[in-house]
């Protein structure tokens, strides 16, 4: 019962926020606020995303490369790393980073506002929190998630190439040629679409958790924790489902 109510509330938050996207560009103040959110979401997470994607690519190259070497097929290392990154690992790891870095911060910020009556104050002033707070944050995630996923793919592929060249004896140019030959538009499109969906999910979950916070500091802690856990689970499940729909 409370589960279905929670799902209903979260869905309503998503629909209302998406419907409020145009208002993000309406006034100078709201555009400035959107800029701040874009910066926090994109530039703010760049260091973490860079390290995560670099190591994702390096681990992939090492694991796959060792297996390929047994069959003398190292020339396909680039293709293997690229295909895994572009289809799955880039949107997945950047989704995880965004949920941990940005989603948690949104839930904590809005949660604190809720327990301090700041959300109530907005409602009294007839400023809908969905338009004023949720829409810019959600849109920033939806815009930045695919950008970061693309970046993640590039950095991961380069990281894999360095491991290939230094530890597996794969020529870097050969590696890149193999990587570029396999990547096609459909893979890129699905990968980026996944990232968009993840951005939407992370934003919706953390906004809904934040706005629904009650019971003081404990409530803020719980909202933050739940936003991260729910986002992680949904990223995994939706990732699988999108792959199934697109590749089967």
């Amino acid at each position, binding site marked *: 019962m409370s589960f279905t109510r929670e799902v209903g509330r979260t869905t309503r938050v998503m629909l209302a926020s998406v419907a409020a996207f145009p208002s993000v560009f309406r006034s100078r*103040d709201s555009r400035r606020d959107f800029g701040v959110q874009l910066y926090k979401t994109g530039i703010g997470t760049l260091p973490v995303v860079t390290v995560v994607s670099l190591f994702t690519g390096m681990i992939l190259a090492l694991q796959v490369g060792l297996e390929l070497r047994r069959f003398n097929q190292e020339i396909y290392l680039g293709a293997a790393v690229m295909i895994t990154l572009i289809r799955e690992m880039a949107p997945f790891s950047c989704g995880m980073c965004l949920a941990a870095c940005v989603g948690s911060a949104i839930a904590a910020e809005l949660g604190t*506002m809720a327990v*301090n*009556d*700041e959300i*109530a*104050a907005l*409602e*009294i*002033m*007839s*400023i809908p929190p969905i338009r*004023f707070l949720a829409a810019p944050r959600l849109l920033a995630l939806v815009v930045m998630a695919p950008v970061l996923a693309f970046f993640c793919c590039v950095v991961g592929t380069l990281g894999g190439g360095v491991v290939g060249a230094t530890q597996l004896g794969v020529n870097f140019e050969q590696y890149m040629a193999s990587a570029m030959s396999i990547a096609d538009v459909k893979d890129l499109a699905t990968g980026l679409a996944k990232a968009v969906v993840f951005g939407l999910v992370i934003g919706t979950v953390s906004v809904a958790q934040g706005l629904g916070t009650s019971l003081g500091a404990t409530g803020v802690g719980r909202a933050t924790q739940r936003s991260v856990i729910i986002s992680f689970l949904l990223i995994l499940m939706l990732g699988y489902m999108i792959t199934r729909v697109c590749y089967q």
Partner: protein
Amino acid sequence: MSLVVFENVKKQFSGRKVLDGLSFEIEKGEILALVGPSGTGKSVTLKHIVRLLEPDEGRVLVDGVDVSACSRRELEAIRSRVGYLFQSGALLAWMTVEENVALPLRECTGLSEDEIDRRVAAALDAVELADAADKYPAEISGGMQKRAGLARAIVRESDVILYDEPTSGLDPVTSITIHRLIKKLNRELGITSVVVTHDLQGALGFTDRLLLVKDGRAVECSAPAEFAASTNPVVREFLAAMKGEL
């Protein structure tokens, strides 16, 4: 006609009764003080007036409209007539004091920037906060945050202003300034005012009526002179305790 009517309002939070059959009326144009021990539901009562909370039982009428049964549009209309000072101040952390005070004007009125600047400056002057206009809430003291919240509540010159402890955490001199300001807004603009306060002495001096709430019910509601002379044992006890504290 009464502007706000509470009819036998009951409210509980996870099994704990906070309001237990609260009934009282607020007349148009008066200053009503809402007093009572900490935790009796004074803030909860104020929140019911603008449907930030809804009663489990009973009704709250504003200008004859049942706030928990009215449409979204009617609610917006009611809220647009109300200024609200929250107990916590409830300023937005990423805006300066000036921007916070200007927010209700920028977002809900079509006033020009010049007019907004003028009104914001006047409101900040009235709460003696002109020097802190460019500071962020985290950079000013609790009492200053309270006064900034007060400036935001009064800047729209709404028909009704709800003040949740406007003078808590303020020194006696500033408190008197705030009391005078509330009285002035009431006398000059006819703003109906509800003031939650622990400063009983102050309240006896500047309000038209006092309402004592205890255990979720209205115990006494009368003009200051009658209130001070009341023979109701709960009121006597409350008055004695307050005097003892001073």
